[in-house]
């Protein structure tokens, strides 16, 4: 295997991991606030279709990403209203959000399937982008750099700021946070909306960068893999980053193995990312005590502020 080939694999791994990073970091913040939103897949699809429709009609990708984030945030607000204000079951509502997102995106994108779109352009860094051999490592699109900034920001926010501490307190013990005067529901609303926005961006990345087109259900389970990544990462941002790159590598690895004509049926290779998710989940949740220690204590439980 020559080094040029290796570089190209690294590049495509990073690109494949990028949507997972956005979606999983967002969900991590949501879960840290004690809310389990299983609607990531649905929000991603709505983000993907919004970005594609806006991007291909206006030709402005920036606008496309902003509207994708907005559309997914609106969906997450619906989830927040149901689960936080009306205190519905979070698992059921999240599932509803995914099913609704599937239907809505298929409906909204019906006239756009198979159309072309000009994808996201790489951000050329002077000098570095033209390096021999290593050049491709400095020719990523802006969203890839954005994902690293987001990681850094989420990490700083959660572990180095007062607001992040409040958010984690709300996730660990909402009644205590409420007792000391923290607006539990408002903080949870904001967290859910943040998760919505990043899921929207993750979806937009699918339809405008990873595979610049719109196909019904194109997220192919990535929203669920992002959810699994948060568990895998034991709710820590840097592990999300590492996990996303591992998954990106599995995804790209199986594609390359298929291209190489490895004598294993292509369907088995295609199922590797899903299989890997299961294996990783088993490995990480095997230790019950450790899992219980890491999981935000109020995850998935509604909070009713009493007077």
């Amino acid at each position, binding site marked *: 295997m020559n080094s040029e080939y290796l570089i190209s694999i690294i590049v495509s791994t990073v690109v494949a991991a990028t949507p997972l990073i956005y979606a999983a970091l967002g969900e991590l913040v949501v879960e840290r606030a004690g809310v389990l939103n299983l609607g990531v897949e649905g929000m991603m699809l709505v983000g993907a279709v919004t970005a594609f429709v806006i991007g291909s009609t206006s030709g402005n990708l920036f606008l496309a990403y902003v509207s994708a984030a907005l559309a997914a945030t609106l969906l997450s607000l619906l989830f927040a209203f149901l689960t936080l204000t009306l205190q519905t079951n979070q*698992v*059921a509502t999240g599932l509803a959000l995914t*099913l*609704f997102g599937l239907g809505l995106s298929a409906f909204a994108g019906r006239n756009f399937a198979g159309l072309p779109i000009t994808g996201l352009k790489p951000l050329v860094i002077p000098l570095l982008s033209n390096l021999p051999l290593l050049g491709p490592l400095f020719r990523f699109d802006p969203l890839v750099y954005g994902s690293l900034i987001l990681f850094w920001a989420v990490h700083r926010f959660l572990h180095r700021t007062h607001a992040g501490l409040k958010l984690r307190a709300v996730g660990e013990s909402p009644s205590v946070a409420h007792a000391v005067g923290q607006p539990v529901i408002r903080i949870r609303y904001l967290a859910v909306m943040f998760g919505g926005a990043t899921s929207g961006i993750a979806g937009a990345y699918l339809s405008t960068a990873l595979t610049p087109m719109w196909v019904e259900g194109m997220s192919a389970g990535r929203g*669920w893999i992002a959810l699994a990544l948060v568990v895998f990462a034991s709710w820590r941002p840097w592990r999300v980053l590492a996990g996303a790159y591992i998954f990106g590598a599995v995804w790209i690895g199986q594609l390359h193995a298929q291209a190489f004509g490895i004598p294993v*049926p292509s369907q088995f290779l295609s*199922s590797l990312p*899903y*299989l890997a998710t299961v294996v990783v989940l088993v490995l990480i949740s095997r230790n019950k005590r450790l899992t219980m220690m890491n999981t935000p204590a109020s995850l998935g439980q509604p909070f009713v502020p009493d*007077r």
Partner: protein
Amino acid sequence: MLSFNLRLEKRPLPSSTMRIAAPLLASVAMLITGLLVFAALGKDPLNALYEFFVVPINSSYGVGELLLKATPLMLCALGLALGFKSNVWNIGAEGQFTLGAIAGGGVALFWGPALGKLVLPAMLLAGILGGMGWAAIPALLRTRFNTSEILVSLMLVYIAQLYLTYLLHGSWRDPEGFNFPQSKGFDENATLPLLFEGGRATIAFVFALVLAAASWFFSTKTFAGYRMVVSGLAPAAAAYAGFNEKRNIWLALLISGATAGLAGICEVAGPIGRLQPSISPGYGFAAIIVAFVGRLHPLGIVLASLLMALLYLGGESVQLSLQLPSAITGLFQGILLFYLLAADLFVGFRLRRKVRDKPPRTLSAAAETIQPPA
């Protein structure tokens, strides 16, 4: 102050009337939303609603189609509801459905002639076992390794579909099928008898009704069912009473896997008549909605699956008659579930008119109006 003149008040006891009324309220709200959606799409809303909800079932063939589509939904939802009641979230019914189809279809393809008349029962049995086997994976991982059954069962949906595609591109492909990735058609012995002439519904609908009765009996009249209900409603009480949580998880997943597998084999041994890459328009996922709209109650599920089946037929109908996208079905399904979840609010709360609008005069009255921080 300009605010809602209404406020929510917690009911002393959950309202059993509202528990039944909520799905009806949600359905009405969905219909109204449907009117708005159709109007927004530039169609005469009432006509569109007629095309969507009435035209598909105003013939005996149409009624047959309704029962045909309701059957897999009912079967899957009955199993899922048992799990949801006991807080076991199997959301991979679609995968267990696929494995049921594969296992039962395999019996038909490879042992069909040898089994003669016995092939159909053997297929049904294999289908049930296939679905159970697939659901046993999340059950094992959850009980042994504490792994989320939600994520595992969902991942297995994708794997099951890829496995089916693999088989149909490989050894199970019909050699005379012009290279299409599909199996040979099942012969007469290996297809389910029709429910009535002039329709496509099979006796699988009867299986579903029998199962609904059995499921009602199981959850209300047996100790095992009681244990499951208690573990869902009050996990701590269940643990204190010494109910085995692991047995519960196994039971919930195996039963829901079995019914989903049965649904799968009934679908390929019925209307489809062979194995092909696409055997379900998402029945396994729609069944989650059916289970909730049916209040996790067998009778409710029977009704909800008919409504859901009508949503599928309506989508097909408006696609043909009004050139509207059939994706509208998924939209309505999601909306229905949202409305239901929202309507559930009124099970535990009721709306009351605020008595006072004028500013309070006395200090104690003012203190009463202080709202808790939201």
